[in-house]
């Protein structure tokens, strides 16, 4: 964090407790922060969006119902294309992840709000849950045979000495790459917006140039927000596919 500066571009990522006194539990600070508030708002927004838009249950969907159905179909198609029919029972989980990340990213774009996906710990915990869950599914389906995942099919046996550790490290790097991709994209976008917004005031009349940039970048950020939610979910599907079909 940049020290001293009152309005550093990184200020927007600062986590502050909403209550004055920190809530302690077992030596840990579990205060309700702006990050938790953003997550709560996201969950409420997703729930109310889906519940209220689907309340009509019309055969010919209205605008809101169409939106909800599009979200459903994106995830359903993704799951069918990447995992196959066995993936259907994991649909609720994948759909929850998609909606949570998508709404988190989009709500973070509202000026003055907080983007919880711009904190690597949040995305890393989500990625870890996915990683551990997928590994558990793999072991539950294939038993110890899942360990064959770490040895490429058809390689000579003596190469196992090198290949197994490499595959193991590669496998363990999954939650990291999954979380870093989402987090880095969100941080970069928000910092860029803040930095260019700083130029608008500093340049006076010519600030109209960065202002035009800003409009374009804001539109791009909406694309990035949706795309990163999509990529996060599709990678989850790919990992799930690996666990179910083993390559």
């Amino acid at each position: 964090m940049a020290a001293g500066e009152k309005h550093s571009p990184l200020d927007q990522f600062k986590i502050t407790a909403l209550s004055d006194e920190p809530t302690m539990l077992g030596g840990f600070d579990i205060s309700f922060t702006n990050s938790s508030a953003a997550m709560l708002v996201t969950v409420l927004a997703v729930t109310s969006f889906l519940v209220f838009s689907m309340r009509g249950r019309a055969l010919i969907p209205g605008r809101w119902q169409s939106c909800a159905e599009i979200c459903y179909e994106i995830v359903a198609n993704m799951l069918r294309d990447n995992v196959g029919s066995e993936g259907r029972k994991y649909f609720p989980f994948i759909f929850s992840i998609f909606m949570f990340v998508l709404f988190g990213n989009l709500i973070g774009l509202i000026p003055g709000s907080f983007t919880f996906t711009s904190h690597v710990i949040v995305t890393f915990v989500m990625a870890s849950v996915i990683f551990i869950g997928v590994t558990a599914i793999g072991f539950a389906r294939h038993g110890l045979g899942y360990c064959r995942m770490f040895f490429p099919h058809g390689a000579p046996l003596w190469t196992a000495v090198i290949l197994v550790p490499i595959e193991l490290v590669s496998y363990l790097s999954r939650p990291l790459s999954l979380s870093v991709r989402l987090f880095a994209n969100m941080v970069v976008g928000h910092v860029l917006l803040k930095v260019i917004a700083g130029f608008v005031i500093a340049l006076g009349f010519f600030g109209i140039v960065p202002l035009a940039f800003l409009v374009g970048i804001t539109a791009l950020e909406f694309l990035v927000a949706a795309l990163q939610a999509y990529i996060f979910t599709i990678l989850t599907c790919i990992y799930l596919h690996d666990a179910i079909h083993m390559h």
Partner: protein
Amino acid sequence: MTEPDDQSSLKQLDERLKAARLQRDKDRGINQPGRSPASNAGVGFRIAVEMVAALVVGVGIGLLLDNWLGTKPWMLILFFILGCGAGFTNLIRVARDIDRKTRLAKQSKDSGGGQEG
């Protein structure tokens, strides 16, 4: 032969179906490579993240094992090398995945343009 009208209308329907499928595939493939500079940058970013993540995990495991076993530099060196290997494995995997996707896109374009076979 006896009902040329039916045949030609079926063929027409087939062609229209093919065109519609192609369009749908095109619409669905959001992160298809080679579509725009932005998506190419995305591919580059993906590769960079995959490589760095493998290296970081390798170094992390090495440091942890060193702390635990007291073999100060050796585990770090070993797992640094393994992390490099894993990074390149990831890289090859991503590249192969992109390759396959490009080929699929090209195939569907070819079969959509002319007759198959």
